């Protein structure tokens, strides 16, 4: 059980790059969970649980895309494959990354941190934030781009300092 809850976040991180929207990622995660539960008995204890779940999630992502084939999918299938392969090879340094990110967010200037809080509160999109602030959407997107980039760089540095391979 503990395994399961711990892996949720990791799975979410795995899924997100392939679907882009928060809502879609959550849906795929739910679907994945259903399969995980139903196939629970097939898992070999002692082997890599997260990897096993990822494999399931990967299939769910593709199933999701097929289900929504009428919608335009932003990325091509080959690319999604590539992403999945790449992400599968990532290290399990989730704790470290999470802590690093937390610290990095703490280091943002207040305005930026508030923007992040707003943006990622449940159900809020970039446009919503723009409306709230009375700023043009494009400018808000740019701000988020900048903040995300900065955070990404910061996390990398933290991990490098901590000696973890990136």
């Amino acid at each position: 059980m503990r395994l399961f809850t711990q892996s949720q976040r990791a799975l979410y991180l795995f899924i997100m790059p392939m679907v882009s929207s928060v809502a879609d990622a959550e849906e795929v995660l739910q679907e994945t969970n259903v399969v995980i539960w139903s196939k629970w008995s097939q898992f070999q204890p002692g082997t890599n649980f997260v990897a096993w779940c990822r494999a399931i999630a990967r299939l769910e992502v593709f199933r999701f895309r097929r289900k929504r084939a009428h919608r335009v999918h932003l990325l091509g299938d080959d690319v999604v494959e590539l992403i999945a392969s790449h992400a599968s090879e990532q290290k399990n340094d989730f704790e470290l990354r999470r802590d690093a990110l937390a610290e990095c967010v703490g280091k943002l200037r207040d305005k930026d941190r508030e923007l992040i809080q707003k943006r990622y509160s449940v159900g809020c999109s970039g446009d919503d934030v723009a409306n709230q602030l009375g700023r043009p959407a494009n400018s808000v997107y740019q701000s988020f781009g900048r903040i995300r980039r900065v955070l990404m760089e910061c996390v990398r540095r933290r991990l490098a300092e901590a000696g973890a391979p990136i």
Partner: protein
Amino acid sequence: MTHTTGTHNPLQGGEGAEDRLSELLELANLYCEEQLSQDQAARLTQVLQGDSQLLAIFVEFLQIHAQLAWDVGHGVTAAAPETPAASAPATRPAPAFAAVTPTRSRPLTEGHGGRKHLRSAARSLILMFGLAAVLIGGWWLTRPDISIGNGASVAENGTESRPPVDGVDLARGADRTGAVSAPDLLDGANSDRAMTPLELDALKQQNRIASPHADSPQTDSPQNPDAALVAEDTAVIVPDDDGAIVERINTLLAKSWEDNGVQPSPRASDSEWVRRAYLTLTGAIPTADEAMRFVSAAGERNRGALITQLLDDSRMVDHLAVTWVNLLIGRSNPRDVDEDALFAFMRGQFEDNKPWIETVGELISAEGRSDENGATNFLLAHLNDQATPATAVTARLFFGEQVQCTQCHDHPFARDVHQDQFWALNAFFKQASRKVIPVSAPATNGESPGRNRRVWALEDSTEGGMTFYENRRGQQIAVLPAFAGERLSKDDGLNRRSELARLLMSDADRRVARAMVNRMWAHFFGAGFTVQIDDMGPHNPPSHPELLELLTTSFVKSGYDTRRLMRWIASSDAWQRTSARGATNTDDAPATGTTPLFSRVYSRLMVPEEVYDSIRIAIHSVSQQPVRSSIGTQHRRQWVRQFVESYGTDENDERLEFDGNISQALLMMNGVDIESAIPLAVQSLIAPSGDRRPSVSDCLKRVAVSVLSRSPTESEDRAFRNRYRALSRTVPADQALRTSLEDMLWAYLNSAEFSAVY
């Protein structure tokens, strides 16, 4: 991490990688915001497939997004600063966060693969000139870094700390985060040519044309990051009414810079600015004397005064007229309309500073003979095939709207743009037709039509009636002329084009004003407020809606005064700044797809007319001969035509095939015998009749100022002297001097710096 791929173009080296990275991050960000268009998605797919390093970065970026969504959204908030002491502003710009290195000088070997490769030419001395060019380029590599704004953002003013936006440097590690961004001389131009970097600010600092009142370098680097936004030293003096508008422009832009966390590039040096001003306003570089005169004159009023002077100059009028003739009928003139008459008409309009809306009205409603009424040539060039090309061109040029697709279907992205609107606009042109006039018929003003050109007549029938078009379901739909909400009735016997012109004059929705503002802004800054300046609409939101609104309203209120509009833009604080990128605004590069912030002026390539005229001016400046205008000359027209490839489509599309490679262009310049003009010019320089001979360095300086409007750099000087000395061992001193000067002149003319407008 996966292996690196070999998709990098070795020629592009460092700069290409950074641009690709910027592009990727931009796309990834839009992906997170779910704002990716179809085209962008395709581009993103392409980028990710082609480069596994970028793919890895993409995944990382998305995972940051995912982590934030999970952590913040699920209440696992980031460590907010509970203890003010620990996270006080003073400690925040800790260098650990981002290694900013203000004084790191750029190592010679770093990332400059994009050196221009000189095409071979007939000149026997191409080797030496090639060497000179390489040396010139080499100098640019070694010059010290400019830490524009870096000192400001890290060192002082603890309350305004900000994590520098330098974080993009992922692909190359952290060592360059402090450096000024990679050169991008030609925003969006063929990057194979991008040998010469554009951090010309330091360049110009050193190489200002020596004057008693040199620009003080201190004014360029703001002491206080906030002051940079509305610095006194960038103010241009303008007449009062205009002053208020310019101030508003400055305020709006400053706000957008702050919102986006960038600092604008510093003020351009006078020599950078004077060249840009002449090129933008008159369509050619300043003569050496004009440049020197400007730089040596002192004072704040200098720039404002030059703007006023140039706005009144006949060259400005010519330049505007030529620009618009090219827009209206293109450069290749496949229909053989009377381009001279059209030019004369447009020139007259601009010379008298007629309200733009009236000019547009004239162009739409003109009737009569092509040689008598120049304005008719616009529609004559496009009337064809049920007047659909004319409709499309009219909408694109005057309303800034690309409607040609809506000929067949509703606009795919803009919800409110429908097929019937296209046809309703088209219906206005249905009465018009053109016919050829037999050449023997004399013109009513007594002159005979000249030059074997066909004479046309543009006439309207008086028939009213419905226009029919077929919608996607194959139904025939009837439509009456309608524009801006007003619909004409069926048979009122009106001349429809006149009616359209009349409706246009009211410009209730100010489309015409807005389109002109966007276009004019792009003319000055190198980018407009929308991705394509003639595709405005809900699907293409402007980057600065408030600013666009301000300028549009002001333009309307001024009575569509084109000159005033140009003055506002030219006097804005942003337009005083250099085109080089600083530390914080490296991503402000619309050519890579980002939204423009106008924190710097974007460079562009000269168009052929500008090249032609600038070459002539440069050579004449060397010999101090006056230059006669080349406007309207057959020779210039022919010279320009060689770069135009006509598509032969209904809409007379043509494409300009000019990548700025001048050596090729110069060689094609038959007639104006460049091969002999250069030696002659140099000869007059070194041995002027009567006057005493100038020194060797004065000669070099004259050449540099003539071509590039600046003094020679140290390495250029060195290259020149080496060449001179080497030659002097084998030939007489005079000949050695002549040859080395000619080489420098060629090298300068062939440099990327010359053919750029920045």
